[in-house]
Structure formats: structure tokens, C-alpha cells
């Protein structure tokens, strides 16, 4: 793979990249035309894409049908086993919200930190954020007993003068998720504007051209536009940055604010945020590695970029692993018998298998990324990303189900097995997510054309003999005719 980025036979003398130096040029990309051609070319639908879309839509329809069924017959057809009153839906809600976080981290925070390796993957991650939050937002509605009343959680003026309970973390969730969806969707769109203009210019279908023209807001590539664009983009990046931390902190309050053993702990917000970023990077790998392969974009999303992202993945994995271990320590140190019994039950009790899936997938397997060879092996990164997705889903399972099944009151201890309804809706959510993602990648560029062009050497026209020049020191040199009578 790496050979793509390097002329055949040449010795690679460049230093091994790291997060700071991943801000490398793209040796396999020659000029702007190639960028337009390669990335624009990826927008042509293929048979494989149609096949993938058909699968995604079918899964989505299956999930939607199951949800309709569940609304008609009641939540009893899901696997809930009181007192396990929260199950697959809330697990999936937290899972999908978490997925979203890597996108904002990559597009906003890494932008502010000027981490160059984000350039080629951020669009993908950003789109993933929006669709993941869209998916996540459905789950609380699926989960509640009377989904047709979900708007009661939203503070809207009504003649009954009833407001939602602002003390409830679920109301905070409503604000957090809706804010996050709005801001990340805006951020994605603003970043897309110059690229849409490129597509508009290349479009031949008049209808498509018209739509793209409207969406591009009349972008003309002027210097003034670029200046406004950069300001706006910087502002939105700064605006999104705290959301990366706040949204999942709020989600963690759903648990931390309740008094249940295993939930009621102050470590949850940082632990959840790290976990969210970790799971998001896992999902980025899951998505970007097939894309760069099937769309032949290996010379854009280079091994160096993957390597840098893998380091971030390793770092967040270790943060998460540390949080896991601290939880056990806190339980022991608390001398609280409910906490201690719960954590014992988590790893050695009836839920040992779920806890060990979580621990191995999230703590042990990512340690392989200490090896540079594995970091630079996309196949391994893809396999690992699947494990991370699995592990992070089970992390939420381990947080929710064992706590609820093994609480204060021994008479009400219970088991939990998801039913076909839970599984169908979970699978349907993947269909829903990938349906949007697949539609996105064939309509809009999955790699930011404008930003890639910034790191591709511009194609310089041959200078006119009579124009001003910039000398090697960067000084402007006015044209001085030295041939008398030239203009005569």
C-alpha cells in the first residue's frame, strides 16, 4: 500500500511520521486536476454501491417494521426483564452517540490543533458524526413506552403550563443531542460549501447543477469568500470543541445521577468521553478503510494518516482501560457493599462474559497498536476496529444491564436476554446509518476537495515575462523592464 505513495524503487528517506509530522504532502497526488478527478470520480454509482445500499435499506425497513410492531403490541416484545428496564435501546443510544464523537474530535479539535493527518479523513468522520447522532436520537424514542408522546420532553409553550423536569438528566440529553446534531450538521455543511461548488462546476445534469448551485450558496472562489469561510470554519470548530466533551458527559449523567451501584460515580463523564472518542475512531477505521480501498483513494488516505489515527486510538484505549481499572479500585475503596457486590458480579458473576468481551476488545487488543507494523497495516486496523465496535457496545451493555439486574433489593434480582425485536431494531439502526452514509458518499465528496488541494502543490502557470514576481526571500518584486524600448 505504501508503495502507492512512493515512486517505485525509490528509497524512502523521509522520517517516520507521527501525529505532528503526518501533515505530509500527498506524494501520490500530482495536481488539482487529479484531485477533482479522483475524488469527483468516486461519486459515480457502481453496482457494488447499489448492492450495499439495497442491503442497508432492507435492514432499515426491517428495523422500522419491527418498531411499528413494537408500538402496536407494546414494549413487552422486547427482552426487558424488570428490574432491567433499560436494555438494547439505551445501550445502542449511548453507542451511537459515542460513535459521533470521533467525528467532531477529528474535524474540530484536530483542526484547532493543526494536526495535518485529519485533512483526508475528517469529512468522512464528520458525516459519520451527523448520521450517528441521527441514529442515536431515534433510540430514546424507540425506548420509551409511549413514543407518540416523546415531544413532552421538549420544553415548548403549552396551555397546560407544564414544563419538562429540568432536574432530569433525560431532559439534559434532549438538549445535548439536539444541540450536537444541529452544530455538527452545520459544521459538516459549511465545510462542504467549496466542494459543492466544485461539483457544481463539474455537473452536467442541469437539475443536479441547479441543486448544487443552491447548496453551494453561489460560491465563486473569491478571496473574500475564502476569508469568510475560514473565519466561519474556525468559529464552528471552536464552537464544536466543547460539545465533544459536554455531550457525552451529559449522556454519562443519565447513569451517574442515578443512585444505582455501578452508576453513581464521578468518574463517568471523563470515562464516557474517552470511550466515545475511542469508539468513534474505531468506527472511522471501519468506514474509511473500505472506502479508500474500493474508491481507490489510498494515495489520499495514506498509511501515514492511518498510523497517526491509530496512535490516537491507542491513547484513548489506554484512557478507557485506566477508567475500567479505577472503577474497580473505587468499588473496593468505597467499602460500600452494594458497589463491591456489583463489581464482583460484573467480572466474576453471571455477566462475566460481557465484561470480558469489553475488557479484551477495548483494553487488550488495542495494545497491539504499540507495534508500528500493525499500525500501518490497514487490514489489521479494520479487524481491530470491528473488535472495538463490539467492545464498546458491550461496554454500555456492561454498564447498564448488570447494574439493573443486580441492585439493592435481592428479591428483585433478574436476568436479561434481548429478544428478536431488540436485535431487529439494533440491526435496523445499522441499516439506517449506512443508508445515509452510502447516499452521502455518492452525492458529496467523501474527502474534502478544497482542503486536500491546500496540501497539493498548486499547478503554477508559466510566468509571463512581464509580470511581478516573488523572489526567494518572499519579497515582492515589481516588474522592471530592463530591455529599453520593449514596449515601444
Amino acid at each position: 500500500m505504501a508503495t502507492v505513495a512512493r515512486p517505485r524503487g525509490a528509497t524512502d528517506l523521509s522520517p517516520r511520521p507521527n501525529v505532528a509530522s503526518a501533515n505530509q504532502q500527498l506524494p501520490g497526488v500530482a495536481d488539482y486536476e487529479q484531485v477533482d478527478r479522483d475524488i469527483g470520480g468516486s461519486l459515480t454509482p457502481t453496482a457494488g454501491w447499489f448492492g450495499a445500499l439495497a442491503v442497508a435499506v432492507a435492514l432499515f425497513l426491517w428495523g422500522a417494521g419491527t418498531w411499528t410492531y413494537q408500538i402496536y403490541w407494546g414494549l413487552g416484545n422486547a427482552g426487558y426483564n424488570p428490574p432491567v428496564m433499560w436494555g438494547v435501546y439505551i445501550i445502542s443510544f449511548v453507542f451511537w452517540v459515542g460513535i459521533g464523537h470521533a467525528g467532531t474530535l477529528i474535524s474540530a479539535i484536530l483542526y484547532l490543533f493543526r494536526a495535518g493527518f485529519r485533512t483526508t479523513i475528517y469529512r468522512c468522520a464528520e458525516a459519520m458524526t451527523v448520521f450517528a447522532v441521527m441514529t442515536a436520537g431515534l433510540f430514546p424514542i424507540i425506548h420509551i413506552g409511549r413514543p407518540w408522546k416523546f415531544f413532552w420532553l421538549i420544553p415548548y409553550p403549552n396551555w397546560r403550563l407544564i414544563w419538562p423536569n429540568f432536574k432530569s438528566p433525560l431532559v439534559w440529553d434532549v438538549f445535548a443531542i439536539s444541540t450536537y446534531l444541529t452544530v455538527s450538521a452545520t459544521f459538516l455543511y459549511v465545510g462542504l460549501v467549496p466542494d459543492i461548488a466544485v461539483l457544481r462546476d463539474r455537473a452536467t445534469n442541469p437539475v443536479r447543477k441547479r441543486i448544487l448551485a443552491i447548496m453551494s450558496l453561489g460560491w465563486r472562489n473569491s478571496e473574500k469568500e475564502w476569508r469568510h469561510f475560514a473565519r466561519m470554519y474556525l468559529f464552528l470548530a471552536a464552537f464544536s470543541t466543547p460539545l465533544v466533551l459536554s455531550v457525552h458527559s451529559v449522556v454519562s449523567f443519565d447513569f451517574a445521577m442515578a443512585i444505582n451501584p455501578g452508576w453513581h460515580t464521578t468518574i463517568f463523564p471523563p470515562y464516557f468521553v474517552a470511550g466515545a472518542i475511542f469508539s468513534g475512531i474505531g468506527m472511522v477505521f471501519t468506514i474509511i478503510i473500505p472506502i479508500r480501498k474500493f474508491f481507490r483513494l489510498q494515495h489520499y488516505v495514506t498509511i501515514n494518516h492511518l498510523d497517526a489515527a491509530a496512535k490516537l486510538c491507542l491513547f484513548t484505549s489506554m484512557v478507557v482501560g485506566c477508567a475500567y481499572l479505577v472503577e474497580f479500585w473505587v468499588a473496593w475503596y468505597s467499602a460500600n457493599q452494594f458497589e463491591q457486590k456489583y463489581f464482583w458480579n460484573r467480572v466474576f458473576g453471571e455477566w462475566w462474559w460481557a465484561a470480558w468481551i469489553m475488557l479484551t476488545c477495548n483494553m487488550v487488543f488495542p495494545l497491539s497498536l504499540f507495534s508500528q507494523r500493525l499500525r500501518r497495516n490497514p487490514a489489521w486496523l479494520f479487524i481491530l476496529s470491528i473488535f472495538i465496535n463490539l467492545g464498546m457496545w458491550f461496554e454500555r451493555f456492561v454498564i447498564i444491564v448488570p447494574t439493573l439486574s443486580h441492585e439493592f433489593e435481592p428479591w428483585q434480582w433478574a436476568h436479561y436476554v434481548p429478544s428478536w425485536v431488540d436485535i431487529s431494531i439494533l440491526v435496523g439502526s445499522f441499516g439506517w446509518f449506512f443508508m445515509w452514509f452510502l447516499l452521502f458518499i455518492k452525492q458529496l465528496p467523501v474527502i474534502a476537495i478544497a482542503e486536500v488541494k491546500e496540501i497539493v502543490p498548486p499547478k503554477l502557470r508559466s510566468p509571463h515575462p512581464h509580470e511581478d514576481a516573488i523572489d526567494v526571500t518572499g519579497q515582492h518584486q515589481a516588474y522592471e523592464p530592463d530591455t529599453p524600448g520593449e514596449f515601444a
Partner: protein
Amino acid sequence: MTERSGSAGVKRRDFLKVLGAAGAVTTTVGCFQEDVEKLIPYLVSPDDTVPGVSTYFATTCRECAAGCGLIAETRDGRAIKLEGNPAHPVNHGALCARGQASLQGLYNPDRYRHPMARKNGKLERITWDEGIRTLRERIAGLGAGAANAVFVNQHETGSFAAFLDQWLAGYGMPAHVAYDGEAPHAVMQANRQSYGSAWPALDFSAAKLIVAIGADFIELWGASVTQQLSFADARAKLADAPRFVYIGPRRSLTGLNADEWIACKPGSELAIVNALAGKGDVAAAATAGGVDQAVLQRLAGEIAATKPSLVLSGVTTANALDVALAVNALNVAAGNVGVTIKPAEALTAFDRVGSPNDLRDAVQRMASGAVPIAMFRGVNPVYVLPKSLRVAEALAKVPFKVSFSPFPDETTELCDLVLPDDHFLESWGDAESVRGSVSLQQPAMDRVFDTRATADVLIGVTKGDPATANRIPAADYRSWLIGRFPGGAQAFGAALARGMAPGSAAQSTGTPRTVAAAQPPAPAPLEGQQGDFYFVVYPSPVLGDGRATNKPWLQELPDPVTKIAWQSWIEIHPTTAARLGIENGDHITVTTAAGTVTAPAYVYLGVRQDVVAMATGRGHTGYGRYAQNVGVNPLDALPVAHDASGGLALATVKARIAKTADHSPIVSTEGSARQHARGIGRAVTAAELNGPEEEEVEHFAGDNKHDFLPGLRSPVANDAQGVLGNPKSKDKGMYDPEHWSGMAKRRWAMAIDLARCTGCSACVTACYAENNIPTVGAPWQGRSLRPFHSGDGNGWDTRPGANILKGREMQWIRIERYYEGGEDGSSDFDTRFVPMMCQHCGNAPCEPVCPVYATYHSPDGLNVQVYNRCVGTRYCSNGCPYKVRYFNWHGYGEPARRQYAFPEPLNWQLNPDVTVRGKGVMEKCSFCVQRIREAEHRAKLEGRPLAADEFTTACAQACPSRAITFGDAADENWSVARLAEDRRAYHVFEELNTFTAVVYLKKVNHPAGGAR
């Protein structure tokens, strides 16, 4: 109608013609209706009823033989709730679960809706005239065969037995067979011999030592409510309460209430009683019983030293009569008669109960083809007699069989004529439960279906024939009753208001046909039989002999001991189970000489290692949708064996057991049977209670655990407002304590005395009745198991109790049953029954988490659930440490859903004051808020303040041990305020700072020798 087109159109005149004709046709057709449906019970309301206000009728319960007094609450002409009659000498206002559930007999959707006769092999609808005429003609055609007629009637106290015998005698038929499969016949016969009455009054509170030898006096042994009241009063003497020792192979609910359990082999009780009485060899008795000699020795000494004591027998082995007589002799010798056993105040409810042997004899005569006509009322011999008696085959030899049963039970389905009886809440009658006092039974409402009281049918039979028309002078049974009532109609009417009158019921003069010479063969002695296990069958404390099984409340009520609902089970000791590799739910087959029975195993500490035990009551092949094909009937494996009194011997056979490959999970509401040192059900010993009070643990300011602060002003809220020093400060809190409503001055609270609670679970059923709680365990109420399923049950979880397997029972109040000790399976163990309901926390974890304020705190301290506001996030349930919130997983209240819990006419019972909850909302105990508000409104209308202890919740009202006390803890005039100050008081999970409104009073144990 002519079609016209074009510019002419329809002429105005034609249009009016057509319109007129069409309108006339529509109107005329619309006037015809097949059935007139009664949308509201009254078109013209009686003068004394007010819509929306309850009317109360005093009547008498007929669910078992005891005959408790009832107050039936009716609303707009429909009975909606039964409560005990406080004036009644038997139950003093309490009512057991079965009594509560008789409403579901009244409104049972499987009740026969009209009389039927068998035509071409099928029961088909007939009219009452037709039915009565058929019966009259059949009887008239009997001739000399009338002497061989059989009338089997459910034993019940009162005049009906005499009326029936008089009627039967008029036709030359022998007196009826009065059957009660639940009565301890051996004890009754022994009592008649020893004390001269079948059931002397038992005064538990006068005793200093109680020894029960298989006598399950909290369950079906005698009049359970009376006995439970007396027993609870005895236990409420705390440190001075009698010590209670239970002897028997299985620890029943009564046994679980004992301080000590001596697990003896069945059949060894006689030797043990003799040893205890000092008449036999203790060592030999200990060997025979498989018990520790030292324990017997100690108990014998205790009985000799403790006076007065109360020794009770209730064994069901073949020598039950001998044991009962020996026990009575022991009581006589110990001087207990007249002190703890009071023949002078005898219960007369069981006086005329016939011997089951009579029924067996009748069945044998049927089998021989000698019986020309058999009539059954309230008895289901095909089910209640062991299969080995082949009752159905015997019935087939009877040419004409009449059933008066209102339910499609197994016997009735074989009958030729069905004349469904009225429910006791629809008909007249009387009872004499206590000598000299008549308890009247009056209809609380109009008939639900086209049924008729059997007494009136019998009168109708005589009236139809001029020859017999004057035999019974009264026009109907009511007139007959009034006719023999001292003081006549006026006195009768006056007595109805109270439900009680001095006097006595008519006594039957007829004698039942003497049992044919063939006494049952003496069963083989237990010790000589083949098999490794004693097979002990016991009547279910909830379902009795199976007559209560068609009521969903009772099917759903977990067995008080095993906590199993909607299922049969075989109890096996943990050590035995481990040895045989049997786990909970593994099917095991019990094989006796008489047959086999297969059911899931339930590993239970309270049976001997060489005993397997099974409860009766389930395994119906008919009897309506709720009973049919749920569980198995242990009588299938029981031989026909009687003790000397004629009672069916239930512990008389040895068995082999074999594990099968099948497994079905146990439908239990139990999570963990151990409380893991979490202090949920606490106990003290009598010695500790006599000792000095414990050092007060230091609490932070405001955390005075016995402080019930009015309304919202919980200590935590006060802390937040900086009034640490004065948590009772009047000027703090969200609600103005001086608000005109007075609400903020109250703190509704509950005290539960675990020393009194016996775990009988009457409160649970009372709560179902009061609060419209759906039952969820019926086979069609389960969830879907796979995506493609049909409407007829294919693809649905149709196991009985499927929802309970998923923990989805809706018991707003549940009885937790925790064991202490006995982990190794060999030593004795203590049982703690903890009624658990919403604790109405002052600082409730459920309230802040609800995003829509569906649960909030009322000014008078209630934790309120607003069903209409609930969107069903279920976050409140996660927050609740007590796990007392229940979710509507299916549309239990939606008639269109298969999970509908109130099929017509069960929905008639629904309490109009309580919402029927919809799908997807949370619900929980409301402290019967409807009763609180009703009482407040009543007081307000009468212009007076609410009086202390003026009303109570449904659970507290029903409780036969008076363990639950409800009231305003912020007002010291209420009993609950005093109880909250008791030194035994504690709150569950107090360390969570929930400041609950429910205070538990510790159980008091009385270990042997007075020490722990």
C-alpha cells in the same frame, strides 16, 4: 328508485318521496335489536343510590366453609370490592385472598351464561322453564329409584343444607352428601369425640407455647382468618409471645412462621405425640421420626413446664385420627381445654361437614350402575378425588346427571343438565359460623348472567307439579328464609344492614345415606412401601382443593411459601437435589403405586431430605380459560386412602422419583431468597427485646430516622435550606404548611409489623382488587417469540406465567420471603416475610429523574404517579432502590390486544376511582390515594376534620394479621405515628437517605431456651 338523468334531474317531489321512504325503512330496521344491552345497570336509579358513590351490602362469604362476614362495595349496581365485616365474629373485618377473589368468580368470563341440556352429545342452551321441567319430569320418573339418588353439595354452614334435605326427603331421596375436600376431617372427628364440637375456638394469645403437628392453621386448617387474627395477636405480645414449634415433614406457610421446625417423617407423628405427652419412648419416637432425640426431649420438657400451651394436629397420614385424638388427650392432660381451646365458643361452620368417604361411597354406587340420578352443586368430584377412583367412568354409568355449578368444571362437562347457580353475591342465604349468631347472605347486585339460585330452582321444581306445589310454602328461598327468621320480614330487613342477627340456622334432620359396609381398605403402612421418598400432597394455601383455580388473581398470587404462580412444582430438598443432579425447573416424575405425575422440581429447604411434596389445585382439564391445562394434579398419583374419619389421606404413599430430560423455568417472583445482609427483613430475639435498648447511632442533623416530617419538608430538603438545627421548622419547604388545604401538614405513612405478618398474601389480592391491577400470567398474555407468528398463539410465548418468567408481574405490594440460616440444607432456618410496596420516600430517587414530572411529590408526602403524563422512560424504576415500580409492557387494558387482562365481564369489577393504565406507562402503589381523597372529601362535606384512623388502605384493611397500619405520621393521634416510635422500627435501606414513609417493625424470634 327510478334513475333520471339530463336537465330534468330529480324532481323535488320525487326526492322527498324517496327520502321519506328511505328514512322510514332505516328507522324501522334500526328499531329491531337482537339483544338489549345494558350500558348502565340502572335506567331509573333506586332512591338510595347516588351515581359515583358506593353502596355497601353486608353478606357472607362462601368461598370456603368458614363463612366470614363480608361488606360488598357496589358502585352503580355492580360489586367492585369485598371487605371483611368488622362486626362479624369470625373474621372481624379481615378477609383472605380467596375471599377477595370471589369477585372474579362472580365476574368470571367462563361462567355459564344460561341453563343448558345435553342434546346429541352437546350441551345446548335451554330456557329455565325447560330446565326445571326436565328436572321435575326426571325426578317424577324415578319411582323407587329415588332412594338411590345422589345429591352432592358443597359443605356450607347455614339453612340451605336443611332446606335441601327437606326437599330431597319430599321426593323420597336420601339426604345430601356434604363435601369439603379442604376440611381436616380427622381433627374434626377427634374434636367431636374429645370436646363435643367439631371446631372449638382456639385462643393462641392465651398460650405460652404453640406446637402444631402438621396443623396449618394459617392456611386451610379450619377457619384461617380467625386463627390468623388470634395468632397475630399472640405474636404481638412480642417478648411475652408464645414460642411456636412446628412438627411435620414439610414446612408449610404456618411452619415458616414457627420459631422451630422439627422435620419428622410422615407417619411418625403418633409416636412423637406420645413421646411429647410422656406416654411413649422418646428414643424410639426420635428414631421413627428421623429427628434428634435431644430436641424431642427438650420439647417434651417444654410442654410439661409451659402452661397453658396449645397443641394442634393436622396430619394427613392414614392414622390422622389417632394422632388427633392423642393430641387432644395431651391438651386435656395439659389443662389447655377451656384456656387455649374453648369448646364453649365453638365454631359451628364445620358442624355438618360430611365425610369424604360418603362421596367415595356414592361414586362406588354410581360405578355399580345403581344410581339413577346424580346432582352436583359446588363440588367437582372428577377433579377433587384421586384419579385412581375413576370418577368419570362411574359418572358415565349414571343415566341422568344434573349440575348446578356456575362454572364449566370437569364434572359439569359430563352432566346432562346444567342449571347454573347464582353466585353468592347474587343470591340469598344464611350462615351460622358461630353458635347463636346468624350471618345473612344477600345479593349485592343483580345477576350477571341468566343464572338462578339452586334453592329457587328446587322450589320451582315443586311448584310446577300440583301434587307437590304446597310442599314448600314459600314463593322463593328468600321468603322461606324470612319465614323462619324470628321477627319476620321487618327483623330480617333490619338484620341485613348489619349482616348479623342472633339466632340459628335451620338444622338438617335428615341423615346422609349410611356408608355401605365397604370401608376403604386400610392403606399399606408407609414404612413397608416401595420407594425412596415420602410423597406428601398438601392443599394449596391459595387455590385450596382446586376450586379457586379459575380466578386469575389467585393463579397470579405467588404461593406464599415457594412464590410460584401459574405452575405446578415438586418440592425437593437441596441436598437430595444435589445428590440426584436436579436443579430448579428440571422435570421430575414421581411414581407411586397409584400412578405418576411429572412436574418441574423446586428446590426447597423446608422439606425433609426423604420427602417430595406437591400442592393440589392445578392441573384442571376444564374449569375455564384460567384453570385449564395449567400445571398438573398430584392426585393423579395418589391412591384412594382414607383415615379412620373418612378424610382423604394425602401423605400416605412412598414414591420413586426420576429426572426427565425436560426443563421448564420456575415461574417465580423470587429473585434471591437471601437478603445478603442488607437488612431488609430484620428480627430481634425476645431476649434482646427484654434487654437494654441499643446505643443510638449518631445521625447527622435532620436525620432522625423516626421523624416523619409533613409533606415535602424532608430532612434533606431542610438541610439544603440551612435549617439544620430545626428540621420541624414551620416556615420552610416548598409548600406553605399553613395552606388552606391542610395537605402540607400531613405525612401519609405506613407501619408494617413483621412480628405480626404471616406472609399469607391477602394484602396482595386486596391490592389487585382495589387498584385494577392486571394479571399478566395467562397463557395468551405472553410476548411474541419470533417475527412471523399467527393470531392463534403460534409464535407467542404461551407458557402459563410467561410474563412472570420475565419478571413482569404487577404486584404493587409483594411479599418478599427471605431465609436466614440453613444454608447447608441441614440446620433449621428462619423466614422473614417482608411486604414491600412503594415506600413513598421523602427524598425519592425516582422523582428527580422523571423528565416529564409524571412522578412527583404531593404536599401530603405521597409519591404520586401521573399515568397520563408518563411517557415510559422507566428511569424512575432504575432509580428506585426498592424496585416497586411496574411497567405496562403490553396493552393489558386494551380489549383489542391478546394480553387484555379484563375480558368481559371481569372488567365490571374495575374500581371506577382508579385509572386502568394504558400500554407503556409506569405504575406503582399509590397508598390508595383514592381512599385518602375520598375520606378527605367526606370529612370536608361533613364539615369536620379527618378523624384519626378513620380509613385505611386496601392492604391494611384486608390483612388478617393486622400487620399493616396506615395513617398520618405527622399527627400523633394516628396509630401509625405511635408505631413509628416503636423501638423495633426501622426503614429499609435507610443509608440511602430516601426517608421512606414505610416503617417496618422487626420480627421477634423466640429461639429454644430463650437465647439465640
